[in-house]
C-alpha cells in the first residue's frame, strides 16, 4: 500500500535520514521503532507531506506522491497524529474532531454526526462539549487519534500515541487500535512501548541514526544483534550472548 524508497534528508550538517526504505502492506499494523533521534518522526513527516526529502520517493497505492502537499495526501486517505499533541485548544472536543470529518462531509449535520461517532469509538463520547484544553494527557492522545480517524483514512500514521500514558491507560487504548485495524485501516506506528509493539505489530522496521538497521517479524527483530546494540550500546549483544550461555 505504501512504498518508501531511498529517502534521504539532511538538516544542515545532520543527516537525519540516510537512504531509508520501507513498505507497509495493506491491512497490516507495521511498527517503526528505534532509539531517540533515529529519525522516525522525520520519516513520518516525509510520508505525510510535512518534510520534503532531498532524495528518494514515496509511493502510495501506485501513485508517486513525493512532492504532494500534506492536505492533498490527507484527501488521498493518509492521516497522521502528532507526537507532541496539537489540539485546537480554543475549540471543544467535538469541534476538534469535526474539522477532521469535514474532509469527507460538507454538511455540518453529517460532519457533526460523524465526529460524535468517532468520539464514542475512541472513548471521548462523554467529553464532546468540553474544551480540548481541559483534557488530560491521555484524553489529548485520544483526541489526536479521533481527529485523524475522522478523516476516514485508509492509512493511519500513529506517532507515539501511547507515550506518556500509564499502564492502565495503555491497556484501555490497545483494543481501540485493534478495532481500527479490524475496520480495514492500515496502520504504521512509531512506538517505544515494546509491550504494545509486540502485541500489535505484524512487521517491524528498526531505525537508528538515520539508517534502517533491521526489519522483520517482532520476535526476530528483538533478537537481532544490530537492534540490541543500537539500543544498549556497542558490544551489548555479545555480552548478552555470554550471559545467556553462562
Amino acid at each position: 500500500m505504501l512504498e518508501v524508497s531511498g529517502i534521504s534528508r539532511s538538516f544542515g550538517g545532520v543527516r537525519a535520514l540516510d537512504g531509508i526504505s520501507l513498505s507497509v502492506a495493506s491491512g497490516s499494523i507495521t511498527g517503526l521503532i528505534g532509539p531517540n533521534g533515529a529519525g522516525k518522526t522525520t520519516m513520518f513527516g516525509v510520508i505525510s507531506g510535512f518534510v520534503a526529502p532531498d532524495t528518494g520517493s514515496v509511493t502510495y497505492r501506485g501513485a508517486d506522491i513525493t512532492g504532494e502537499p500534506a492536505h492533498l495526501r490527507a484527501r488521498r486517505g493518509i492521516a497522521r497524529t502528532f507526537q507532541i499533541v496539537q489540539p485546537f485548544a480554543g475549540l471543544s472536543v467535538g469541534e476538534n474532531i469535526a474539522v477532521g470529518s469535514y474532509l469527507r462531509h460538507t454538511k455540518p449535520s453529517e460532519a457533526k454526526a460523524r465526529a460524535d461517532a468517532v468520539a464514542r469509538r475512541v472513548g471521548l463520547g462523554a467529553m464532546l462539549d468540553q474544551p480540548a484544553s481541559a483534557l488530560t494527557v491521555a484524553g489529548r492522545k485520544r483526541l489526536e487519534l479521533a481527529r485523524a480517524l475522522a478523516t476516514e483514512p485508509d492509512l493511519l500514521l500513529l506517532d507515539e500515541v501511547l507515550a506518556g500514558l500509564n499502564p492502565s491507560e495503555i491497556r484501555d487504548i490497545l483494543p481501540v487500535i485493534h478495532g481500527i485495524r479490524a475496520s480495514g485501516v492500515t496502520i504504521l506506528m512509531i512506538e517505544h512501548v515494546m509491550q504494545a509493539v509486540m502485541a500489535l505489530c505484524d512487521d517491524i522496521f528498526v531505525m537508528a541514526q538515520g539508517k534502517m538497521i533491521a526489519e522483520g517479524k517482532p520476535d526476530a527483530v528483538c533478537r537481532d544483534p544490530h537492534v540490541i546494540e543500537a539500543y544498549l550500546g556497542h558490544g551489548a549483544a555479545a555480552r548478552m550472548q555470554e550471559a545467556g550461555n553462562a
Partner: protein
Amino acid sequence: MKRSELLFLVALLAVLALVPLLASNLVINFLVTALIVALAALGWNILGGLAGQISFGHAAFFGTGAYVTELLQLRFGMNAWAAAVAGIAAGALMGLAIGAAVFRARLRGSYFALVTLAFAEVLRILTNALDFTGGASGLLLKLQPGAAHFQFDQRSVFAWIGIACVGGVLLLTRHIMHSRFGAQLAAVLENEDAARALGVDIFATKLRAITLSAAITAAAGVFYVQYFLYLDANIGYGTWISIEALLAAIIGGVGTMAGPLIGALALHGLGELTRGFAGSITGIDLVIFGLLLVAAIAFAPAGIVGAWKRYVGGRRNA
C-alpha cells in the same frame, strides 16, 4: 449561538431601526457613521477574528470600494448602484490579490499585519499623487438625490440601508461559523500544522477569508462615499479606518458574531460623549480609544461580548 443571543441581536437592530424616526439629524449622522465602521469591522472580523490573520491595512479594501464607486460615476458616468457593485467587486479583487501575494509568501502574525499596512499606505500615497483620483484635493460626487442615484434626502434611509447591510453580514457570519468553512477557519487560526494534517488547504482557506473580508469592508467604503459624497486619500486609504475596524472588532469581541457591531456602537458612543465633555482637546476620543484597547486586551481579551458571556455564565452557575 443561543436563541436568546439571537433574539437580543434582532431586538438591538430593531431599536436601531427605530432611532431615525425619533432622533435628530445629529443622532442619525452618528448612527450612520457607527454603522459604516461596524460594517468595516464585521469584514475585518472574518479575516482577523475567524481566521486569526490580524490586518492593520483594511483601509486598502475600504478605500478601493470607495474610490472605484466614486470614480466610475465621476469619470465614466456609471449608474450609482452599478458602481457600488463594481466597488465591492474591486475590493474583493484587491483582497484576493493582496492575499495571494502575502499568503503565498507564508507571512503570518506581525509580518502579515505590517505588510497589509504597507499595501494600504502605498495605495494612499498613490491616490494622493494621481490626478485621476483627484489628488490631494479629493473627489466630490455630484449631489443628485433620488433612489436611482443611491442618494437620499432623508438621512434615515441611509441608516435603514446600513442596518439592513449589517444585519445581512451578521447572518452571513453566523452561517460561516456553523459551516465547514468556519471549521476550517478555526483550524487555521488555532494550529496550521494540525489543520494541514486534517486535509485543510491553508492557502485556499486564507484566500477565501481575505476575499470575503475585503468585499464586506469595501461595501463600507461604498456606503461612506454615497453618504458623504466626498472622498480623499486620507479618508479612503487613511489609517483611521484600518484602526477603527480593528478596534471595534477587538473591543466588541474578536471572532464573535456581534462583537464588531457592539464594539463600533460602544466606541462611537463613547467618542461622541468625550468630544461633548472635552471638545476643546482635539483627538481626546482617540486617547480614550487607546486606553480602552489596553483595558480590553488586559481584562477582557474576548471583548464586550466575551465579558458579557462570562458574566451571564457566572450567574447561572452561582
